[in-house]
Every structure is written in structure tokens, then in C-alpha cells.
């Protein structure tokens, strides 16, 4: 993985830049000591490390604006960072760039229960929003598994999902407004507490833009009342095909569960060994189906789902009888990553999405690849929305294994695209999947995306080296080859 060549001219000016930034963000807001910088050298994708030139931790939107304007004027690259939990290297620093950390933006500004929204600063954690509103029975729906740590600003940047997004949507479906700062220091407000920001949907564009378009300084999210009850079902199947068919049948019957997760045999065993979730160990596929809503609905749907599961050959079924049992069902799934971490020195988590019906084929091909690469793989899967998380097991201390794991991962993602899916469902492209973008998009598609980037950041200073495999200058992207002359298609129907 190649990052853009560091600009020596910038690196040489470090002390001057530190002094200039110190005037904008006084006190301890500018970190430049090499030991302290090391704390920022990677994010949740720890395979890649690079200490930044400088870290800036502003406290006000005016400071953010002045820092960005300064960097823009001086050609200094900026990597925005929330909690640093990205699994795709979205916050990987640059040797010649500053990290703009939003950690000090950690206040909840307003809770408006009547309008069912909360206005928060970007450094507030995902779970922090729910904690702030749960005394009135509300919660913030998207729930990425890192929700204790990850920040809402990072969620906006990555369009984070979670196990409940089949029913309740991703971050993008749960936002109402943003305050953001462009690289030239312009402060913009998009949306508010009302629905549908008018004009171009910049709110939608910003969500999932991975810190390449602007820096979010305030977020207005929708909050929902918690469902009255939730119960979970464990369903075991002798083959993953049957499990996959059951998922399709549930949805085909008009049932949209609050969550529908699938695990394969290696993941079941690893999780069960780790947290004693009580999972059946003699099945090839385990489904966890959660139904939420009024008790009458939940009871009714559980019966329906059980009937569908039996039709599809389920050999194990168990319905949670109380909250404690429901939490235990989930405990195994939620501990799946660390559980795999226990049985393998290292693991590499992938994030492709596929059309649900392709699951059996993809699992089969993955097993073949696993043998071919000589590396184990365990699968957890947001079955309802087709989002796969294969965990490739490897040992970084064995020469060549990391590279093999990465190749294996790339092959899995290529397979996802081949069967009609996408490279990343919720973790983002970052640096990790950057060089695979060509599998999904052609040159024209990618250039159009980069032209949008140019509308926000013409000097490509915000998070360069992420998302796009090739950097083009905006002047080059804007060029148009004009072929004047004959009107095309003389026989085209005209009216």
C-alpha cells in the first residue's frame, strides 16, 4: 500500500507550522513531540502505522475554521480524526500532514424530545447519545459494534451501520443536520431539525465521505423511542444454504426483523468457547433473529419465523425467555471478533456486501480460497442486509502471512463485487480498499467522484491517499474534450 510521497518542504517547516498553529489553538492543543505523536500513528486498522507531522486538537468551530484556512493557504495536508476506531485506515496519518482531532468537541448541545432530535458535537460517542436520551426512553438507532468508543463525527464520515440497520437504517437515514467547515475555512450549516435539506443533498453526500470533503463540527441526529419489547431467536441449520434460504424466506414473508445475524461453524465455536453463549455446536450455520416492537407483534412474528425456519430445515431453535437470555444470545455474536482473536494471533476483518441470495455460493468459494491460501476464515454476517464480515486468521510473525491474508481478503472482496455486491458495507474504503476501487468502478465513475471532491477541496488537502487509488489534479479532471460538429444520431426520434 503506497501513500502519497511526503512533501519534504512541509516536513522541514514543522517548527514554523507548530508555532503558527499554536497561535490559533493556544494551550495544549498542538502536539508535536515524537513520543506523544505515536499515540496517533494508527486507527482501528493497526496493520498500518505512520506518525503524523503534528496533531491539532481545537476546541471551537472558529479554531477549526482558522486551522483549515491556514493549512489551505500553506498547502498542508489534513487528516480529520474522531475517536480513531476506523477499520479501514480512514484516519491513518500522513508524515507531512496534521491530524485534526475532534476529541474536544464532546458536548451534547441540545436534546429536543418534542422534535425527536439531539444536537451534539462530533466527538460525542455513539453510545453517549443514547445515554443522554435514554432516561426518556429514547435511543439513537445506528449501533456499530464500536459504539462505546466511536464518535458520531466519525459515524457521519463513515456512514456507520450496525446490527439494527436493516430495520432502522444507517447513519445517513438518521441525520437531520450538520455544521461543517470546508478546507478554506468556510463554515456551513446544512439541514437543521427539519426534514430534507433543500437544494442538493449535501447532508447525504457528506455522510460516508470519509473526511475528504469537509470537517463536521456539529451533528443533529434523530432519536427514536425504544421498542417496548425485544426477543431473540437462535436457529441452527445443517448447511449454510439452508440458513441463507431461511433469511430470504423471512424477508420474503414481509418480516423485517430488528436484527438478523448469521455465523458459520468456525465463528460459532470460537464465540461459544469464549463467552459460553450456549450456542449449538453441531450446526453449520447459526441465525440470531431479533424481533422488536409491542409484545403482541413480537410473539406473533416469533411464531412465524419459527415456522419458516422449520420449513427450511432448522435443526435447532431456541427463543429467549427473558432479557438475560436475549443478551446471552447476543453476547456470543458481539464477542465474535475478540473470540477469533483468541484462537488466532491476528485476524483481518473484511466488510463486503452481497445480494443475500449469493450467500451459499460466496461461502463455498471462501472455503475453497481458505484452503488455497492456507489460512482459516470465520464468518459473521449481517444476514438481513447481506453485509459479510469474514475474519481471516493469520500470524503476523510468520513471514508472508500478512501479505497472504491481504491477498485472500482482496479476493473475497472481488468475489463480492463479481456476484453483484460491493467492496464495503460499513467500514469504509479508507486506505484498506482504496486499490480495489477499480473492481467496482471504472475510470469515468471514479473521476466523476473526484470532481465532486474538487468542488469542496480543489487542492486535495483533506485526507489525501484515502478512497481513490489515483490522485488527479482538479485542473486535469475539469478538462473537457470538445468535439464540435454534426449532431449525433440523425435518425434519433425527435419531436
Amino acid at each position, binding site marked *: 500500500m503506497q501513500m502519497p510521497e511526503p512533501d519534504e518542504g512541509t516536513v522541514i517547516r514543522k517548527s514554523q507550522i507548530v508555532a503558527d498553529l499554536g497561535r490559533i489553538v493556544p494551550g495544549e492543543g498542538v502536539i508535536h513531540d515524537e513520543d506523544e505523536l505515536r499515540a496517533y500513528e494508527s486507527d482501528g486498522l493497526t496493520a498500518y502505522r505512520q506518525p503524523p507531522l503534528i496533531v491539532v486538537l481545537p476546541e471551537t468551530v472558529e479554531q477549526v475554521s482558522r486551522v483549515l484556512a491556514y493549512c489551505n493557504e500553506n498547502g498542508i495536508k489534513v487528516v480529520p480524526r474522531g475517536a480513531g476506531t476506523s477499520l479501514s485506515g480512514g484516519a491513518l496519518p500522513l508524515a507531512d500532514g496534521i491530524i485534526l482531532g475532534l476529541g474536544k468537541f464532546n458536548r451534547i448541545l441540545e436534546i429536543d424530545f418534542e422534535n425527536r432530535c439531539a444536537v451534539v458535537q462530533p466527538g460525542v460517542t455513539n453510545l453517549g447519545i443514547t445515554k443522554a436520551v435514554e432516561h426518556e426512553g429514547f435511543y439513537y438507532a445506528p449501533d456499530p459494534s464500536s459504539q462505546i468508543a466511536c464518535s458520531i463525527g466519525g459515524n457521519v464520515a463513515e456512514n456507520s451501520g450496525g446490527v439494527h440497520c436493516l430495520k432502522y437504517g444507517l447513519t445517513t437515514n438518521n441525520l437531520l443536520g450538520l455544521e461543517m467547515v470546508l478546507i478554506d475555512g468556510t463554515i456551513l450549516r446544512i439541514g437543521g431539525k427539519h426534514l430534507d435539506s*433543500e437544494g*442538493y443533498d449535501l447532508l447525504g453526500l457528506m455522510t460516508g465521505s470519509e473526511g475528504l470533503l469537509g470537517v463536521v463540527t456539529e451533528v443533529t441526529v434523530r432519536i427514536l423511542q425504544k421498542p417496548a419489547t425485544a426477543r431473540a431467536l437462535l436457529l441452527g441449520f445443517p448447511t449454510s444454504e439452508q440458513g441463507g434460504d431461511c433469511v430470504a424466506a423471512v424477508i420474503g414473508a414481509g418480516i423485517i426483523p430488528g436484527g438478523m445475524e448469521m455465523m458459520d461453524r468456525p465463528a460459532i465455536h470460537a464465540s461459544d468457547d469464549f463467552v459460553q453463549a450456549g450456542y449449538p455446536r453441531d450446526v453449520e450455520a447459526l441465525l440470531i433473529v431479533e424481533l422488536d416492537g409491542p409484545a403482541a407483534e413480537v410473539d406473533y412474528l416469533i411464531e412465524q419465523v419459527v415456522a419458516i425456519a422449520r420449513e427450511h430445515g432448522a435443526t435447532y431453535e431456541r427463543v429467549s425467555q427473558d432479557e438475560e437470555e436475549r443478551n446471552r444470545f447476543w453476547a456470543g455474536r458481539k464477542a465474535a471478533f475478540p473470540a477469533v482473536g483468541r484462537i488466532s494471533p491476528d485476524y483481518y476483518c473484511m466488510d463486503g456486501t452481497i445480494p443475500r441470495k449469493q450467500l451459499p455460493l460466496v461461502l463455498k468459494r471462501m472455503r475453497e480460497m481458505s484452503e488455497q491460501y492456507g489460512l482459516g476464515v470465520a464468518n459473521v454476517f449481517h444476514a438481513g442486509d447481506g453485509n459479510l464480515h469474514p475474519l481471516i486468521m493469520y500470524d503476523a510473525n510468520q513471514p508472508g502471512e500478512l501479505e497472504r491474508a491481504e491477498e485472500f481478503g482482496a479476493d473475497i472482496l472481488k468475489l463480492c463485487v463479481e456476484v453483484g455486491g460491493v467492496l464495503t458495507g460499513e467500514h469504509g474504503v479508507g486506505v484498506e480498499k482504496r486499490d480495489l476501487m477499480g473492481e467496482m468502478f471504472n475510470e469515468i465513475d471514479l473521476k466523476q467522484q473526484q470532481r*465532486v471532491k474538487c468542488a469542496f477541496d480543489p487542492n486535495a488537502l483533506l485526507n489525501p491517499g484515502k478512497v481513490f487509488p489515483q490522485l488527479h489534479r482538479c485542473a486535469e479532471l475539469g478538462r*473537457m474534450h470538445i468535439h464540435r460538429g454534426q449532431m449525433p444520431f440523425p435518425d434519433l426520434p425527435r419531436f
Partner: protein
Amino acid sequence: MSQTFKPTSAEQTAELLTWAAGEEAPLEVIGTGSKRGLGRPIQTANGLDLSDLKGITLYEPAELVMTAGAGTPLSEIRAALAENRQELAFEPGDLGPLFGGPAGEGTIGGLVACNLAGPRRIKAGAARDHLLGFTAVSGRGEVFKSGGRVVKNVTGYDLSKLVTGSFGTLAALTEVTLKVLPAAEKARTLLLFGLDDRAAVAAMSRALGSAHEISGAAHLPPDIAKGSGVSYIAGAGGAVTALRLEGHGPSVEARLEALRGELKDLGQSEELHSKNTAALWREIADVTYLVEPADRVVWKVSVAPTHGPEVVAAITARVEARYLLDWGGGLILLSMPAGEGGWADELRGAVAKVGGHATLLRAPEALRRQISVFHPQPEPLAALTARVKDSFDPRRILNPGRMYSGV
């Protein structure tokens, strides 16, 4: 010479737009033109009619996904979904009659381009939340795609959001892929009577803040309720506040009972069964109440729900207006006599105090030329909007000026 081109493929569309870019010859982009009355009027020598890019190319009910040519008639899409007891969950209204045309027209591409959404917006989102991917031709004459056919996808920028609601000013859509959802097994509407605007919004806030998953919350003042085709509402003799519950049978029954109990301090309530529920919410989605008199201007205002009543009060203090509140009070649909600049300054002044936007939904062409149809943007946002336009359509050949002058 004025001509309208009707390409039959994305490639033909690209070749045409390459030519138009070279000639700097702007085009009016349309599906069937059913919503031509929405937006600023534009004058271009030529037109681009996308209605031959039609046909459902992929529909997998169990995968909840459909792909269709942008020019596919909405009626065809609705029929295919209905056969499988599915629907476009964002409940787009049929605005044909509001614009003086027939009902049942329009294309899926036009729907996406206008980002319409009906009463279920509060629960299910708008068109923007259901477009999974698309293929389009930019103003550079290049065919490009974005997104995919799966719901969970963060691969690259979400250009689906950007083209939705861009009124054909960024790219000519050629194919769209949408998320589709099962239609509710059962629907009921709880009716409350005689509430004024504030009391109605307070009641709707209570309902929407409950766990009962309200999928429609609207308030019809007395003169609007009187015009309903649903006899329970027309005969109520006063204002009617409606709360819709949808879902599986036992669930709807249970939630209805609970909601009725929680709101019993608001007086007698009634319920509408499936058929009347469908009729009522169709009227609200289609803004049927404001179709006549046809010479009045119609505005659509989006604010935080609790601010709905004060915006209404500010405007009704100045001019005789007929209005209804949807989205729990957050959407105000109102009609007023034309004249006085369509009351834009008064309305936008009131909206500015609380945050939100006001769109001139229906007005004579002259008025739409004279005042901003879409809410005016502050300078930095307007500048960014223009740059985004240029990133797709540098020669401004696609529907120039349809949203904002010069863009």
C-alpha cells in the same frame, strides 16, 4: 430550431450530451413532464425526453430490490410491486392533478429527480433514502454509475443522495436501483377531533415520541377536513388530527389500543379501517385538498414539527391561507391567493426565525420566474452548490436554472 430528443439507450444519451456540451446547447431534461410545473421555468432550445429508457430490468422481491430504466412509468412500477405485496415505502404522492394534469403519470426517474415523499416520510424516509444506485450521463456526456444494488454500501461517495432531488441539473438519469419494501399487512388510523394547530402538534409529538411506530401524523383544519372524500372526516364538523399505524395485524391492534389509551385526555377518538385509511393518506400525499382553486399558489414548508403552528400563524395573520400539517407538524402545505409576490417574503421571513425551508410548489410561470422557487441559499452554500453543479455539468447544459438562477 427547437427539437426534443428521445434516446433509447444510455449510449445515445451520452452522444447527444457530448454534442450539446460542445455546442453549449442547454436541454430541458424530462421524463413525461408531469412535474414540469415544479421548479423554475427554463427556456432551452432543445429538450431531452428520457421516457424511452424504460422497463424494469431487475426485480427480486426477496432481495427487496428493483432496477428500472429512468423513464419507466411509475404506474408500471407500482403495478409490479403490488403484485408482490410490496411498495415504495416513502409513499410518493401523485402531484399530477395539483399541476393541472391527469393522475397516474410520471416516471421513476422524475420521482427520484424531485425527491418526493409522502406522509410516511417521518418513518420510512424520502426517495433519497431508497435510491441504492444509478447510472446517468453527466453534462460532460459521460456515462457513469454510483452505488449498487445492496442497502449496505459505503463504497465511494454516496452520489445517489446528490442526484436525488437535483431536478435533472447534475446528470440525466438513465437507470435507477431502488430499495423496495413489503406493504403493511394492516393499517389503521386513529382520529382526534376539534384540536387547534398547537394542540394537534402537541398530540402528534406525543404519539411520534411513543414506541408505537406512527407511520403518518397529519392535522386537517376544519375547512380542509370538510373537503375530504372520507365521510368520517368530512362529516366531523371541525378539525381532524390523524395518526396512522401500520404493520402486522396483531401489532397494529395492540398499538392502536395503547395509543388510544394514552391520548384519551384529548377527548373522543375514532378509528379508520384499511380502506378509509388508504383513501385519507392518499389525499394527504397527493395534496388533493389544495388542487382547487387552481389559481392559488401552493407552498411546501419544512420546519421542526413544533414550529409548524407558529409559521402558520405568522402567515395567516397576513393573508387568507388554506393549509394542512403533515409530518407531525413539520410539513406545512398551504395555498394562498396569487399576488403580492406569492407571499414569499412573509413566509420565508417566518421560516427564517425557526429554521427550515419554503418551496413554491405550484404557481403560475410568471411568478416562478419572478421569485425563488427553492429557498434562497446563503452565499457560501450557493457558491458550493454552483461548484457541485460544475463538477457534473461544467457547461451547464442540463436543466440550467431549474433550481437556482444560473445553476
